[in-house]
């Protein structure tokens, strides 16, 4: 579904991503592990079209994403839910969600149906629909952020550290929901520092260090890998 071939990204003279080769298969839940500053968000931004790669190719379902406008990438079916939630705090939850459906704005019936599906995933948001998104708790805001991304009807959903700053119980629910989204047919690429929780739901995982992918494997391989356990799980 998504294939990155020899992708480099530069910020000026600094090489932020170095020769990235990565594959995300249709229906998979692929986890990208890495410490702060490893380059996970840069990689997501490159796939989303927010940053232009200096070398290499990003292919999604036989389309080359390099050079595409970010809005065209969203229309193609690749949607990013950025780190830090980034909601419109003054807008209501409903308006935030509906902005996610921007690329399908003419399909009102489809959007209504999609909104119901999102509210089934996050029932609490129905109660809060008329509240300003900024007045919600961190966990609820993360639900709005994921819900908004889901409103774009992604075929590939990229979640950048959705568990960041959330209470442990909320994190658990969040990972269950991500797994549910995946089981309903959306391919997920998940960047996380919470390696144990992420690997438990992953079909495949990559490890990123200093802008390079240094390791990859399926869930069992990664969970059993001594280096991964030491560096990211702490066991």
């Amino acid at each position: 579904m998504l294939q990155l071939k020899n992708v480099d990204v530069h910020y000026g003279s600094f090489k932020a991503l170095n020769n990235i080769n990565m594959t995300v298969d249709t229906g998979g839940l692929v986890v990208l592990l890495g410490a702060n500053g490893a380059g996970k968000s840069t990689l997501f931004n490159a796939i989303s079209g927010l940053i232009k790669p200096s070398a290499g190719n990003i292919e999604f379902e036989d389309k080359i994403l390099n050079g595409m406008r970010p809005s065209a990438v969203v229309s193609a079916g690749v949607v990013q839910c950025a780190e830090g939630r980034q909601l419109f705090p003054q807008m209501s939850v409903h308006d935030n969600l509906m902005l996610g459906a921007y690329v399908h704005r003419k399909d009102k019936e489809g959007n209504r149906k999609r909104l119901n599906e999102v509210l089934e995933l996050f029932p609490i948001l129905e109660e809060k629909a008329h509240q300003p998104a900024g007045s919600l708790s961190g966990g609820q805001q993360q639900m709005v952020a994921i819900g908004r991304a889901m409103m774009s009807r992604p075929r590939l959903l990229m979640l950048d550290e959705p568990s960041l700053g959330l209470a442990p119980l909320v994190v658990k629910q969040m990972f269950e929901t991500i797994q549910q989204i995946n089981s309903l047919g959306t391919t997920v690429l998940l960047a996380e520092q919470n390696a144990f929780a992420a690997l438990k739901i992953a079909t495949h995982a990559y490890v990123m260090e200093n802008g390079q992918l240094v390791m990859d494997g399926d869930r069992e391989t990664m969970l059993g890998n001594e280096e991964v356990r030491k560096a990211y799980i702490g066991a």
Partner: protein
Amino acid sequence: MMFKLGALIMHPASKYALLALALLFPALAANEYQVYVMATAFIWAIAVYGFNVITGYCGQLNLAHGGFFAIGAYAVALLTADYGWNFWPAFIGALVITAVLGFLVGAVSLRLKEHYFAIFTLCVGFIIYLLLDKWEELTHGAIGVRGIAAPDGFGLVNFRETIPVYYLILFFLVFIIWFTSRIQKSLLGRTFIAIRNGDDLAESLGINLMKNKILAFVISTTYAGLAGALYAGMIRFVGPEDGNILHTFNMITYLLVGGIGTLFGPLIGTLGIVWITQSLQFLEEYRMIIFGPLLVILVIFFPLGVSGSFLTWMHRKAQALGLGPKKVQQESKVNTAREVENNA
């Protein structure tokens, strides 16, 4: 007590009371001069509504806004005085000219971001001013344009008189407020706000930045052109000083004081400052000694402006009282700050 008063102000019926007050103003005013001042304030308010679309909602500080006001005024002035057009065709012409020029300037300037965009548009505003002043063959230069046609009346209505023209301008102001509220409630308005919150975030939602920024720019310049056209029809003289960059800074002040990005901020700020300025006329140039510090205090302690601070205070108070949006709406017809603003 204060909350109840606030809820009363935010009651949907308040806008009709405000409209009734505006309709009765000529009867309540002490003299015709006050009606004239109010009509002029309404014209500036229309222009500030335009400024609010591009700067308040969309987050792009357009410092050429006063220039587009002058283009609207000059379009009517030149088409009626030099080419013999009637007012209304010239008025439509002014809207088309400001929209087209807005599109052209927007298409170039909006490639820049933030302060680079602001500096670029500042230069555009200054170029417009210089053209009005120096291009004598077209604009009559420093002597300005006289003999501008007044809006054509009908029946006994003669728009050369102050009171009929007051109602004409009020009609356009009400239309502009209604139109802006429609934009604000629509997906287009939310798209502009999304862009204001950040280019990357807006783009990651699939929003075409350039298209929407240009659209906001064209809407704003058309508002400015409309205000300028009405100004020319009412004052019936225009000169290069109408394109002075200072007008843009006045509009920024009106918007900051009233409440940037709010529906009633442009009206509150413009009317408030125009009337405060009028009441301090006896101090002549020294009025700025009082007016300046007042503005500084307002901006420091109420950075959201009068309207924005009030809405935020009401929302916090509603939350503190444990009134959810629906409950508040039931009890006092107050909704969340943003929704009330949308409903108004």
